[in-house]
């Protein structure tokens, strides 16, 4: 490991010692943060997986029903029906903080989520009704999935970033500082010894005269 390019002085030594202390403390904190983030991530990822499986299954069912309905109905009728349904769907969006990661939270009023079928039934295939119903039921889950999946994404990125920081401290910064401190201590000790022998030599020279 390369040592830092600094002068071997006492001042530099105390400065480096302070830095080493900060680095060690930072390393410990970041490592703890990383552990906690991974713990939370695993919980979220498990939930994400089961939720996605459920949502995908229900969604495929609903969309298949829709495709069948589309085949049974003439397309102008279908488009007319779709135009009638309430537009301008909105959700409440806020954010929450998970281990320093800003993650979104979506919520939708139950009143808003529930849509009564707002079209005439005469020209519409029954598959269509069913698929709309399933779709609006799965929608709340879909939003939850969006929330969890996004949180997982962001946590994964943050965990990776954090790991880089921990590794940089552990394998580069701290060894470098330790080596430099050792070098300066040795150098100062060597100077001290050199000084001592010189003084002893001078003393014998004076005494011997």
């Amino acid at each position, binding site marked *: 490991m390369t040592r830092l390019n600094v002068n071997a002085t006492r001042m530099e030594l105390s400065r480096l010692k302070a830095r080493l202390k900060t680095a060690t403390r930072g390393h410990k904190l970041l490592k703890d943060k990383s552990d906690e*983030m*991974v713990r939370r*991530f*695993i919980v979220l*990822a*498990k939930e*994400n*997986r089961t939720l*996605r*499986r459920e*949502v*995908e299954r229900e*969604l*495929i069912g*609903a*969309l*298949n029903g*829709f*495709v069948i309905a*589309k085949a049974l109905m003439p397309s102008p009728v*279908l488009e007319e*029906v*779709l135009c009638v*349904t*309430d*537009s*301008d*769907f*909105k*959700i*409440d*969006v*806020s*954010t929450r903080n998970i281990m320093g990661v*800003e*993650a*979104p939270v*979506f919520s939708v009023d139950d009143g808003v989520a529930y*849509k009564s079928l707002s079209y005439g039934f005469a020209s519409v295939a029954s598959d269509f009704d069913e*698929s*709309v119903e399933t*779709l*609006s039921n799965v*929608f709340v889950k*879909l*939003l939850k*999935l*969006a*929330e969890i*999946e*996004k949180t*997982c*994404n*962001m*946590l*994964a*990125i943050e*965990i*990776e970033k954090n790991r880089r920081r921990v590794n940089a401290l552990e394998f580069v910064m701290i060894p470098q500082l330790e080596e430099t401190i050792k070098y300066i201590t040795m150098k100062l000790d060597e100077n001290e010894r050199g000084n001592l022998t010189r003084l002893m030599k001078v003393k014998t020279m004076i005494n011997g005269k």
Partner: protein
Amino acid sequence: MVNKIAVIGDKDSVLAFKSLGLDVFFAETYFDIKNTLEKLAEDYAVILITEQAAEQVDELLLKYKKKCFPTVIPIPSGTGSTGYGMNCIKSDVEKAIGTDILS
């Protein structure tokens, strides 16, 4: 803060979402999807995109993964799931932990 949801994909798959009152956009080619996504990213909190479409603009989605908004979520289309969504979860786990320990 109140926000909107958009759906991007081929017509057969996304038209159903119109019945919920979501904003629906048809796009099937790479450039269509890319342009629509970039345009929508500014106004929408959640963008649902079919897996077939998501696969085409994979690298663009990586960019949005880092930001809080918009939340871009792959959904299966009418023809079934390609497994893209599940692979996304898998790659997240691999990124965070190093290996996929959950499967």
